[in-house]
Every structure is written in structure tokens, then in C-alpha cells.
């Protein structure tokens, strides 16, 4: 992997929780390169540090040591205000429990990242229309989150994460609260966006089926990188089987094909 094509580079990421006397090291020196247009999955047993790793990469959490460079900007050196701006402009997020604002309609939620101004309304509207169509939520634009199904909420959340055309989309267990059909729809849309529009995605999941949509899957164990799998030209089913095998070896929970 050449340095020039790399969109995200993380070097020797460590994260320690707890007191100085009793430190608990969650991330024990992780390295990662993500190229533009990749769809990277992060897997591993509970407590392996998946979510912490992603939160650190996504600048929501700070690393105890190590450096993270996203598209040429060293985010570990950024101050909080600058970091917020960077997050708002360059990164997108999807959370397990959607995190939509209950008092806003679906459309208002989606447009939230643009709400501080500085964009032509026409352009925003065009991007919105494209995403609303892509995620099949245009018909619920004026409804409130509590009127939407889980799948619709998560697709709204995904549209919100992409409205400002971020460099990287971070997704933390996006299918965790969805039924399998809604999950398949969402993942299909994400894969489509990744393939057709070149959106770079990082996704944490414990679900091998969800991870099988990725182009590459990292396996963490105990705060370290255990191994990684590339999908290459293989079918999703074959990739899924590989993932299952690694998971079996990892000794985490063994999943059954749903």
C-alpha cells in the first residue's frame, strides 16, 4: 500500500482507561491504513476494543498515544474546536441506536450537518434528493423519528451521515438493532454507495453477515490486530465463510448463519 493513496493512516494507537496506578490498556498499539474507496469492517470478540478503536479513529475519543492522519490532517494534534469542525465537515457517523433527534423530522435530521450554513440551498437539496432516493426514505421526509420503522430510522441516520459528502463514513454496529431484512437493505445500500460513489466506509460489527459486505475485515483481539481478510473477487458467501472460520479460531462467540 503506498502512502499517497492512503486516506486514513493510524500509527501505534494506544488507549488506556482507569487510574494511573491501575491502568487498563484497551488498545495496545494498533496500525491501520485505509485507502479511499475501501469498505473496512472491524470485528472481534466483546472487549477486544473494536468500538474504542473506531471512536478514536473517528475523533470522538482521544488516543492515549499514537498518531492518526486523515486525508493529510493530523487529527491527534487538533484542538477540540478544530476537531469538531473537522468531524462536522469531513466525517460521517451511523450509530447502533440511530441517534436521531426526536423533535426533528426525518428531512431535518438528515440536513442537520448542513445546518450551520455556508452551503447553497439548491446544492444541499440536490444531495438530499439523491440520498433520500438512494435510501428509499423520500416518502417519510416530513415524519418524526417515532413514526418511522427501525430500518427507516437507520437509513435516515445513514443519509444524515452522508449529506455533507464526508471523506469517511464510520458505522458502529449499524445493523445491531435491525431485523435481518432491514439490515440487508441497509448494508446493500451502503455497499452500493461504496462501489458506485466511492464512499469510504469503516464499520464495526460483531455480525459476520454484516461484515461480509465489506471489502476488507480486520479482526481485533485483546487490543491488538489479530488478522485481516480481503474479499478480493470472491463471492459474499465465500467471504462470509472465511470470516466465520477466523471467528471460530478467535474463540469468540460462534455465530450461526441466519
Amino acid at each position, binding site marked *: 500500500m503506498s502512502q499517497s493513496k492512503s486516506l486514513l493512516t493510524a500509527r501505534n494507537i494506544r488507549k488506556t482507561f482507569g487510574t494511573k496506578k491501575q491502568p487498563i490498556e484497551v488498545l495496545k498499539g494498533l496500525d491501520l491504513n485505509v485507502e479511499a474507496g475501501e469498505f473496512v469492517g472491524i470485528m472481534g470478540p466483546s472487549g477486544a476494543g473494536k468500538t474504542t478503536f473506531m471512536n478514536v479513529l473517528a475523533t*470522538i475519543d482521544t488516543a492515549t498515544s499514537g498518531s492518526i492522519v486523515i486525508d493529510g490532517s493530523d487529527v491527534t494534534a487538533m484542538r477540540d474546536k478544530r476537531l*469538531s469542525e473537522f468531524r462536522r*465537515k469531513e466525517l460521517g*457517523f451511523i450509530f447502533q441506536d440511530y441517534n436521531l433527534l*426526536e*423533535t426533528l423530522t426525518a428531512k431535518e435530521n438528515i440536513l442537520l450537518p448542513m*445546518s450551520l450554513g455556508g452551503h447553497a440551498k439548491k446544492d444541499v437539496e440536490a444531495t438530499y434528493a439523491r440520498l433520500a432516493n438512494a435510501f428509499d426514505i423520500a416518502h417519510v421526509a416530513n415524519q418524526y423519528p417515532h413514526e418511522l420503522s427501525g430500518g427507516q430510522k437507520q437509513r435516515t441516520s445513514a443519509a444524515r451521515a452522508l449529506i455533507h459528502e464526508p471523506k469517511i463514513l464510520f458505522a458502529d454496529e449499524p445493523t445491531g438493532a435491525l431485523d435481518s431484512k432491514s439490515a440487508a437493505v441497509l448494508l446493500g445500500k451502503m455497499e452500493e454507495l461504496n462501489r458506485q460513489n466511492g464512499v469510504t466506509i469503516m464499520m464495526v460489527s460483531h455480525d459476520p453477515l454484516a461484515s461480509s459486505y465489506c471489502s476488507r475485515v480486520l479482526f481485533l483481539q485483546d487490543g491488538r490486530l489479530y488478522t485481516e481478510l480481503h474479499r478480493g473477487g470472491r463471492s459474499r458467501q465465500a467471504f462470509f465463510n472465511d470470516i466465520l472460520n477466523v471467528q471460530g479460531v478467535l474463540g469468540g462467540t460462534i455465530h450461526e448463519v441466519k
Partner: protein
Amino acid sequence: MKLSELVRRNMLANIRQYYLYFFSLIFSVMLYFIFSTMQYSEVITQAVSFAQGIGASFRTGVFFLAAIMLVFVTYAKSLFFKRRGREIGLYQLIGLSRGAVIRMLLIENMIMMTLAALVGTLLGLLFSRLFLLLFFEIMRFDMSVGFQFSTAALLQTGVLLLLLLVVTSWQTIKFVRKHTLVQLFQSKAETEQIREIKPVRQLMMGLAGILLVAFGYWLSGRMLNAMLLINMLVVLFSTVLGTYLVFRVSIGWLLTLYRKQMDGHLQFKHALSLAPLIHRLKSNARMLTLIATLSAITLTLVTGAYSLYYSAEEEADILYPHDFIFDDMANELGAPADFEQKMKEENLSYDHHVIETFSHDVTYQNFDQGLGIPIESNHPTIVSASDLSEAGVEVSVKPGEAVYFGGMVVPSMPEDTTVKLEGKSFELVEIKNKAALNYGVQFNVFALNDEDYRAVKPDYNSNYFTFNLEDQAERERANELYHDISPDPEEGVLYSTNVDETLKRMEMSGVLIFIAGFLGIVFLSATGSILYFKQMTEVEEEKGSYRTLRQLGFTVGNMMSGVGRKQLLFFAIPLMIGLGHTYFALKSIAFLFRTNITVPVIISISIFTLIYLAFYILSITNSRSEITRAIRA
């Protein structure tokens, strides 16, 4: 962990949420104790000549204070329970029985009440002397006041606190008993269901709210006619109902119109202010209506009391134009002569006049006293203009005309009004809202031109003997002499004097302004802190959203631009509506005030605004730190 330990930790953990409530409680207990002390104060009884009325006024004040405190404490408590539902659920989840949870909360409540009671009473003891001094200052008494302590006041405060304790304890038991675990865990989430009303209904109700308030305002300026009482009720009803609809529908409707126009492209500050406000106002409509309406009543009362206080002297002069007045009956007993003799002995300089009058049946055309209630005939007193003028009540009447003393409202120039007596017609040219003879002597008086007077005068008359003094000190001395003369005023032969009436008015309005002023401050502080608690509860409920927003890359500053705006509106809207109500309420009763009320109105409005501003600032400051804390977690 022992229960007592749990209680201790619990209270410490919640102290941030509680301290304002605690301060309010202390403040109210202090005021309550001071009011009770004054109610039973012997100093006041000795100093004030109309002590009975004053005792009653303080009793009323104490009663209202107790009512405000009761409502405030129970409302604040219920808000806290809403915030603490999850915590209470958690205790049960980890195996504490309901009984134990209740016991824990009761102990907590009791500790807080007891602390507030002790501190409040102590402060009350310290400050009661100060309040008494202030009171005497208002009453313009020159008195030295010692340390005040009254067992009765202490007892009365104890009774109130016991009542508060019982009510809140009952509230606690009810809350824990009534809610299942699941409900407790949902007690935050369930609060606000977002439901849109059908546009047509919203339009109609929204308009109805605005129209009802406007109609109430409009009618409030046109109440003075035969249907005064009905008008008042209609104004009250339409304004209160209108206010409720304005809070519940109209404001939300207007904001929604604006929001719809944005078509989803809400600015961030609006996303965090308009959108939540649209839903919050609806569920708070009843509380906000109560606050706006009661604030208006409070402000009107305070302004009224202030105006009465400053016009006490003028009012007494208008209703008691003669310093001392005797009638025929007193004259037969030799009272005026006795009084005159006493004044001469002390070398007081005075004017003495005899006013000749007679009473007669009179019929009217187009006549009312200013209340819009037509009067066709009655039995007034007739007096000649020159007699009155000589006695100090300046008036000039042309032949064929009449001037009426005793109007109820503003002085006016009637049109086409005629007064008929003894077959003669007089044109009524002026209605004065002052007394010709002292109030209590004859209030219903017509002045005629001298010739006309002589022409219609029957063969009977009654005379009034007046004494007026220039010098205030001499007048007060004369007042003492007046009360020394026989016959005894108790027998009802002698009338009340100008000096007596001035003093009485000053004292009554002084008490009124004192009580209304402090009750007003307590009331506005109570409503202000309720709005504040409400805001803090909302921040608590929205913590999840703030975390999300932080992850989406919004700073606390960004969030506060929206949250601050929402809170500003939340404080400003009831303030504005309250002020609007106050304005029209005062306008409709302006005729009662003989002084210009601009100054008191400005003072009360400023205090109202300042109190709310203080709570608003407190609210955004604490919201900022709560949000900062929430997004770090």
C-alpha cells in the same frame, strides 16, 4: 450499604439539582416566618391605629404565601421525580424493596425540609427586625424596633412546614407506589409525544387563541356599563382561555408555519430552539397560562397598591375637602363651639364656614355616575356654588346649569343631561369625582348657581359647619383637640376628619404595598424557578441528543446558540404575555387611580423582567455546564 449511607450519598449526588430548590425553600420559610412575626407583632399593634385591619392584611398575606409555597414545592417535587425516575427504578432493580426506596426518599425529604426550616427560621429571626424597620419606613412611622420573637409565629411556621412535609411525603409515596419499574425507566422518554394536530384544526384553534385574547383586551377597555359584572367575567374568561390556546396552539402554529417554509433546511440554532419549543409549549400550556395570568394579577395588585400608597394624601383631600365638619345634630350639642373654643385657646388659625344645603327628590335625563348605569331619580343634597367656594371647594356654576359632585370614575363633561327639581330644569355641565361635603357626610351633591339655589330652596334646610387649617402641624394639633371634645365620636355624631383619613389611607395602603410587594417577589421568584426547573429537566432529557450532536461535530457553543435561544423564548413568552395582560388590566382599572401610574408600572415591570432575566441567566449558565458534562461522559 446501610440505608442511611445510601441516603447520604444520594443527596450529595443530587445536590446540584437541588440547591436552587433548597434556596427557594429557605427564602420562602424565612419570609413566611417574618410575615407571621409581623402578624403577631405587638409593636405594630401599638403603633398602628387601625391595627385590626393590619392584622387581617398580614393574615391574608400569610395565607397566600402558604398557598404559593405549597404549589411551588409540590410542583418542583413532581419535576424532580420525573428526573429521578430512572434512579428510583434502579434502586428497585438492584433489590431494594419499594418500602425501602420510599423510606429512603422520605428521610431525604425530611432532612431537606428540616434543614430549610431551621435555616429559614434562623434567617427570619435575624431579618424580621429589618423588615419591621422597612415596614415602619413605608408607614412613615418613627419608631425604634427591638429584636422580634414571637412563639405564635414560630408555631405557625412549624404548622406550615409540617403541612409541606406531609404533602411531599404523600407525593413521594404515591409516586413510587403508582409507577411500575418499566414506567420508571421510561419516565424520561415518555414525556413528550410528538403529535401533529390536523392543520385545519390547528389553524382554527391558533386563530381562536389570538382572537380571544385580543377580544379580551378590547372589551377590557369598554367594561363600564350596565353589564359591568358580566363584562368582567367575559374578559377574564376570554383572556384566560385565549392565553391557554395561545400557549397550546397559536405559538406552535406560528412557529410551525415558519418551520414549514424552511422545508427541512432548518438553521442549527432553530433546530435546537424552534423544533423543541413547538412540542414543549404544548405540554406546558396549562402551567404557562397559570404563570402568565397570575403574574399579571400580581403586577396589577402591586401597581395598584403602589398607586394607592402615593395618592393616599391626595385621595383623602379629594374625599375629605374639609378638615373638620359638623352637622346640625353636633351643633345642637355644642360641638363646633366647643371645638372652636379649644382652638382659640391654643391660638390656632382657622377658617370657619357654614354651608347651607337641602335634600330633595330629583329626576334625571341621560344621567349616570360614570359607571354606565343610568339613574332616573334619587334624593341628592343641593348646595349653592358660592357657599361651597367660600368653604374652600372651588366651583362656579352659571344660571340654569348644575355641577355634580360624587362621580365614580374620571371627571367628565356630560352631554344632554338634565336635572329636574321643583319643576325646574338644569343642564348638568360637569361631573366631578370628588366630594363637596366630606365623604361619609353627603356624597351625592349638586351645586347650583346662587339665584337658582334660592329659587328652588324649600322651607327647610340643613347646615354644615366646616373648619379648615392652613398649617399641617396646627391641623394635626386641631385633630387631637377634635377628638377631645364631647360629644364622643363613638356615638356617631362626629365625622371622621381629613387627618384621620389621610393616616388611615396611608397605613392601609402601606400594609398593602408591603404585603403585595413581598408576595409579588415571592410569587415571581417561585414561577421563575419553576420555569428554571423545567428547563433543567429538559436539558436532562435531551442529554442523549447533545451527545449525538457532539459526535456529529457540533461544539457546546453551537448547541448553546440553540438551547439559549429556546430558553430565552421559554422565559420571554410568558413574560411578554404576562406584561400584555398587566398592561390591559391596568388600563381597564386606571380610573381607580388618582395618580399617574407610569412610575409604579415601570418599577413592577422592571422587577418582573429582572427576576426572569436572573433565572434565564442561571438557566443558560447551568445548561452550558450540564451539556459540557453530558458530552464528556
